[in-house]
């Protein structure tokens, strides 16, 4: 096994920012808004770096797709301990329509090119909440997948993954190479230290375009409109049960 792990990191609007919709309802406001690495991607990077520290793998490669600013996100991953970065440059209109299908095609192509042993992604991004990229990547590569991982361990040449599912915890053993998506309780990401940030400056970030990987990133989806959730309406207080029933039947709910 190559000992190389690919980690996808996405640049998203910071979780603490209050999102606002653009006046023309085409999308949310991103200009001048604080962006940072998707929290689940941070967990993914931390897991990969931990594996390297335990000497279970040899190299962590951070990948991000997007405009020039995506390099900041890769730098954060490098400061956390990734060895090198790959920036797949996508700008303008194409970046606005970039979604899980396109990203998973890119990740699959890179996983083959880099001969990765593992691809670790966050389980979903906090801007679109798709929860699709990991699964699609595994399907395109025809690799096993361990999604919603809250615990990952190596057992010989297989990986044991404890998954958080609706019914509780599911433990599976999958062959490598595989795709893993990180859930919240997998680990607590470390802070980058000032010395590590300085060291990260010397680490390399390779630049490429989707066309270089032979990937077509045209979107099959078109966003028609973005709206804020409806304002919560005030309720009505009723005195008796009969009033309640009559109000409910008026609203067509009974």
């Amino acid at each position, binding site marked *: 096994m190559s000992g190389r792990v690919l980690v996808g990191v996405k640049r998203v609007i910071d979780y*603490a920012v*209050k999102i*606002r919709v653009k006046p023309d309802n085409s999308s949310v*406001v991103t*200009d*001048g*808004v*604080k962006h*940072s690495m998707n929290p689940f991607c941070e967990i993914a990077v931390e897991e990969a770096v931990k594996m390297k520290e335990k000497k279970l793998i040899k190299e962590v490669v951070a990948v991000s797709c997007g405009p020039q600013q995506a*390099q*900041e996100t890769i*730098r*954060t991953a490098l*400061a956390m301990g990734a060895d090198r970065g790959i920036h797949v440059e996508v700008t303008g209109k194409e970046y606005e329509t970039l979604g899980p299908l396109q990203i998973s095609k890119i990740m699959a192509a890179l996983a083959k090119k880099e001969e990765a042993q593992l691809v670790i992604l966050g389980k979903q991004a906090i801007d679109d909440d798709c929860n699709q990229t990991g699964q699609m990547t595994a399907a395109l590569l025809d690799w096993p997948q361990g999604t919603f991982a809250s615990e990952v361990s190596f057992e010989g040449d297989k990986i044991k993954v404890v998954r958080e599912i609706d019914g509780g915890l599911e433990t599976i053993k999958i062959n490598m190479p595989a795709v893993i998506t990180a859930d919240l309780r997998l680990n607590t990401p470390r*802070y*980058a*230290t*000032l*010395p590590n*940030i*300085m060291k*990260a*400056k010397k680490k390399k970030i390779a630049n490429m375009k989707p066309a270089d990987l032979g990937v077509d990133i045209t979107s099959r989806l078109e966003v028609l409109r973005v709206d804020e959730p409806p304002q919560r309406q005030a309720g009505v207080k009723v005195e008796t049960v009969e009033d309640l029933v009559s109000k409910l039947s008026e609203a067509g709910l009974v």
Partner: protein
Amino acid sequence: MAAGRPLGRIAKLGSSICRNQRLFLNRSPQRRGVASCVDPAHGLTEEQKEFQKVAFDFAANEMAPHMAEWDQKEMFPVETMRKAAQLGFGGIYVQPDVGGSGLSRLDTSVIFEALSTGCVSTTAYISIHNMCAWMIDTFGNTEQREKFCPQLCSMEKFASYCLTEPGSGSDAASLLTTAQLRGDHYILNGSKAFISGGGDTDVYVVMCRTGGKGAKGISCLVVEKGTPGLSFGKKEKKMGWNSQPTRAVIFEDCGVPVANRLGEEGQGFNIAMKGLNGGRINIASCSLGAAHASVQLARDHLLVRKQFGETLSNNQFFLKLAKRAHRWLRLPPGREAATGWGKPPERVSLSRPNLRHRSLNGVKKKAIFFSPKKNLHLFHFFILLSKI
């Protein structure tokens, strides 16, 4: 107000410098709406953005949740500061060969500004600690640097800066604490007032009189806690900034080895002033950070709070007020003025009142947005406001 006019000129100068720098460096001016916040990463290098990000995260996760408790219970947050030191915040502009991070003044300013959004009082103490560590790093000999700096950079030990006395504040060169040479020791007599961290810290950088009158008679000694003759006054009762204790530091025939003298006799005042040149920038950065956090809280409140059927952000009065506040509170130029775009501190002439005034004015205007109602954000905001 008499201070207002030169302030106005500085504000205009600051904004015109900023405009020219933008044209020169080909950056497009950011759109400023009432509801958009000033981007704190504007104008920073990629590396500085990373430093800022770590400091912001640390402030939000490790400091802000406890800030109110530290203030109310008057706790000196030793463990949190040691965590900060693990990230490299203990000796930010100290040389790496003795455990420091070896960064520039501008990097330091960016970091303190970001840390202050978590707790101004604690960050201000961290900046004092850094200043002391730098003084020993820069003016100490090899033995002194190796003895003190590594433990200060890791915050295994904490430091305090002792210049002010009951009888000498602004006129620092007239200080009276004497240090008489007896064999291989100086015997110190006198007291220092209002020392941040005093009593809880381990290493005291003390300016004292070894020679004649005036600045040329002052030397700088490093006094360690536990030295016989070193004692402390009662903890001062303060309004705010309670996460760092303030005490008088008293010397009664306190014997300090000559080996603990930084630099030559008579060099002490020079060392003290050089330390303060950096400390001035640091404390201005702390104020900027507090202003930044206050503006964000106020802005968020405007978008949420409804009166007269709509959110405050749509209210005509607040729109006008906010535009004026934005003109005062140009955080990027404030930072530029504070750091002189990376020039060494000696060349930047700025006074603490000026910069804190600018941040204060912006914050005061934002303060009107809050009405006295029970509100957790409000409490948080006033804790911040009281610290500026």
